[in-house]
């Protein structure tokens, strides 16, 4: 399809779409075509040249509908974009075409009984700026809370800070409704409720454009940040599990790192004892005392604590060292580093972690995010990887898989090869209904092949 795109006069497309704002400036379009795919040397090779041809910035649902109808008629691929904070090229237009930047669709529509209805492009931080004064906060958010949009999170993310309380986006009850626009001659506006939302969650916008969503919030706690240091990673992970399972201690974050990973946390380093493993935690104020007792009983030492940070402090909020931010800190110091995503689960999951550490050592500095999965505590491994070759990377992945630690490969932009593992039949069926020509974020859903699609071009 690349070739077809070149034939299009994008200035003319922009003129056709007016008064919807468009960006044609090549540098800006390139910038708006990228995310954090370069965390992965594999994706970096494959995606570094990717760029869209035109950025369209709708400010209303009507403008989204108009854009989609136009692009459908012109057979122009459309890739939706939030803030571009994904890590696997979720929002990258690998076949070019239109980048549908939804960041202007940013209205906070309502908050009632703790249920927020918002437009997809609303930034997570701005959402909380509206909800916190009323006593509500997000159940969980990615480490990119400052920049990410809620729509981008739901279409491209899975969990984050708060998942130790509420599980992830796929846990029933965390997303109540989605408003989705289809990619058809006459785009339809769908309201998905209840479990129907799973058709579009973490589908990278391949099967509809999410314009509005409804999510239940959590009552806000006064949070407290703490870093606990341990002599070894084994003790630190046992502590992470014990804290996760302590029903009386309210927490929002339990992230565990060995020194190989923690050494990159530059602004925190004055507080971190060299060579030690650390747990970065967010604890509800009334749980501080019980937390300190548990930390001490687990052989840990609290080396840093403060009330949850404002934005003006020297040390960023602790959550900005966790989840996918960890790899970013490492990459700032060492461009050769990349990472993995696996799940340590089951009754012996702490043993699995220990075995992975024993076999790979400093080749994969350990990074664990403790989380609730289907009613119990488990840990995501977001190990750093000292990258040598793609072949070695996939050897490590194969070992983890064989050891019973499923890997959500972060080195692929293909939906099914990442976290989903298998074809999600519901998502595929939903795509067939909503995007029969395969124009939405093409190339990401492997199982889908479009019905006959004539060449792209402006409508006559």
């Amino acid at each position, binding site marked *: 399809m690349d070739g077809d795109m070149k034939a299009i006069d994008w200035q003319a497309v922009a003129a056709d779409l007016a008064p919807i704002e468009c960006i044609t400036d090549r540098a800006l379009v390139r910038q708006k075509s990228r995310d954090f795919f370069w965390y992965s040397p594999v994706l970096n090779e494959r995606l570094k040249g990717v760029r869209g041809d035109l950025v369209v910035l709708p400010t209303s649902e009507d403008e989204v509908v108009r854009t989609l109808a136009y692009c459908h008629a012109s057979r122009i691929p459309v890739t939706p974009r939030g803030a571009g904070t994904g890590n696997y090229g979720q929002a990258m237009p690998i076949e070019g075409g239109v980048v549908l930047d939804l960041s202007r669709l940013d209205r906070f529509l309502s908050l009632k009984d703790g249920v927020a209805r918002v437009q997809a492009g609303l930034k997570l931080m701005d959402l909380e700026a509206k909800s916190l004064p009323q006593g509500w906060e997000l159940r969980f958010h990615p480490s990119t809370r400052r920049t990410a949009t809620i729509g981008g999170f739901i279409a491209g993310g899975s969990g984050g800070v708060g998942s130790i309380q509420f*599980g992830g986006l796929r*846990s029933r009850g965390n997303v109540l409704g989605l408003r989705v626009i289809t990619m058809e001659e006459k785009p339809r506006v769908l309201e998905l409720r209840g479990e129907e939302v799973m058709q579009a969650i973490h589908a990278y916008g391949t099967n509809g454009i999410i314009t509005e969503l409804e999510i*239940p919030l959590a009552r806000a706690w006064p949070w407290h940040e703490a870093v606990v240091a341990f002599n070894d990673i084994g003790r630190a992970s046992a502590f992470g599990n014990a804290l996760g399972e302590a029903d009386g201690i309210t927490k929002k974050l339990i992230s565990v790192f060995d020194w190989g990973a923690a050494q990159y946390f530059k602004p925190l380093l004055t507080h971190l004892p060299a060579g030690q493993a650390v747990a970065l935690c967010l604890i509800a104020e009334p749980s501080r005392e019980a937390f300190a007792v548990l930390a001490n009983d687990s052989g840990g030492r609290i080396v840093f604590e403060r009330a949850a940070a404002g934005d003006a402090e020297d040390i960023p909020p602790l959550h900005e060292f966790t989840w996918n931010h960890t790899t970013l800190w490492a990459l700032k110091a060492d461009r050769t580093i990349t990472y993995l995503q696996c799940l340590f689960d089951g009754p012996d999951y702490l043993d699995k972690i220990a075995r992975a550490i024993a076999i790979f050592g400093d080749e994969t500095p350990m990074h664990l995010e403790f989380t609730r999965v289907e009613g119990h505590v488990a840990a995501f491994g977001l190990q750093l990887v000292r990258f040598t070759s793609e072949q070695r990377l996939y050897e490590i992945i194969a070992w983890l898989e064989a050891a019973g630690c499923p890997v959500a490969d972060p080195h692929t932009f293909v939906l099914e090869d990442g976290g989903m593992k298998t074809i999600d039949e519901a998502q595929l069926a939903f795509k067939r209904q909503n995007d029969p020509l395969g124009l939405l974020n093409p190339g990401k859903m492997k199982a889908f092949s479009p019905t006959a699609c004539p060449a792209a071009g402006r409508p006559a």
Partner: protein
Amino acid sequence: MIATDPAFRAALDGLELVDHPVQLRLRSRDFYWYSPILKAELDGKAADLIVVPRTVDEVVRVAAACARFGVPLVVRGGATGNYGQMVPLHGGVLLDMARLDRTLWIERGRGRFEAGVRLGDADVLCQEQGWELRMFPSTRRQATVGGYVCGGAAGVGSIRYGQLRDAGSVLALKVVTCEPVPRLIELRGVDIGKALHAYGTTSIVVEVELALAPAYPWVEMVAAFDDFAAASQFAQALGESDGIFLKLDSLMAWPLPRYFRGLEEETLPEGRHIVMIMVAAGNAGTVRDLVRERGGAVTLERRYVEDRAITPIYEYTWNHTTLQALKVDKTVTYLQTIFPLGANVEALIASHEMFGEEVMAHAEFQRRQGRTNCSSLQVVRYRDEARLWEIVRGMETLGIRLSNPHSYILEDKGARVLSADLQLAFKREADPLGLLNPGKMSRWTAT
């Protein structure tokens, strides 16, 4: 009788004393009569004198007097226990905490209360500031904060926050020792175990600091199922749904709902097993979907409101379930059992099949060590004691363990050895004469 000794009375001069025989008998009882066994053992037990302190200083005076004169001392909260926790076995003084009822402070997710504050009042005061109790017993309207931490274990809210004994639930206890010169001791952290769930045998709890939760708008729901296994699996799945914010997840097998007065007939359809639920308003729709998916029907959905005129659904759950049955049928009693983690639903279904309507299944789903499990307060059609123990043995073959509700002995509730050791050691220190609630701690009695 020492409690009527003029010298002893003189030591209590100026305190509110009650010694009317009817009052002595009435206020010396709790809900032990749920159990025909305890009823036979405890009927007629009464204190000789009731003292109603208004301040901690007055509690200290009573403790000092009892220690000097060797008078047994038993503490009474709301007397909503079920095993005679506060029934005086050897007479003496009954310290009625009802007037020690000041709320000391509520701030940033913590609240500190005098022992006699009623849980319902504490909860409402917290809610006015945006907080609420993490958990409470079904006797919320009558029970006191002090009585709950001394005699209770879990309750409405445990599906989210676990057990009262979990670290971080109770933050501090201020206790008075029973010595000629009583000491005031602040217990925090692991030391809380010295007095928590000790039936007041180790010291007198006068203040309680609790961790609170932010207040949610709650919705009460009842879901009905044709099939008991489906109802059980639903209740477990609900408890395991990390994205559904719950406060209550209680399963009652038919014909238990037949005993529930005050709910509409269509809420409790004939022959159906029900699950009673409190869920954050934002997730009510999620629960509705899950009920439908599992083949059930939502028969009640209403906003929870603080209203004396309405019986909240939690008053059909936990230990109220048995009470509702007893109101209709005096011949029933109950069991209290603990289920095997990870296999609780299978055990629940198997026990239902094993005993049919003789043992009406009632399970309270709750978090234990981060997982969803249930404990059960089965209602039993009582024949005789021999048959009751036969049922218990049958349960044991399914991996279901008894936490004996037919005994007033502390250690019979399956107290863990560690906390029993801690409590025994603390009793030696804080009640050297063994005057506090005598006869309840078997390891003390044995020495």
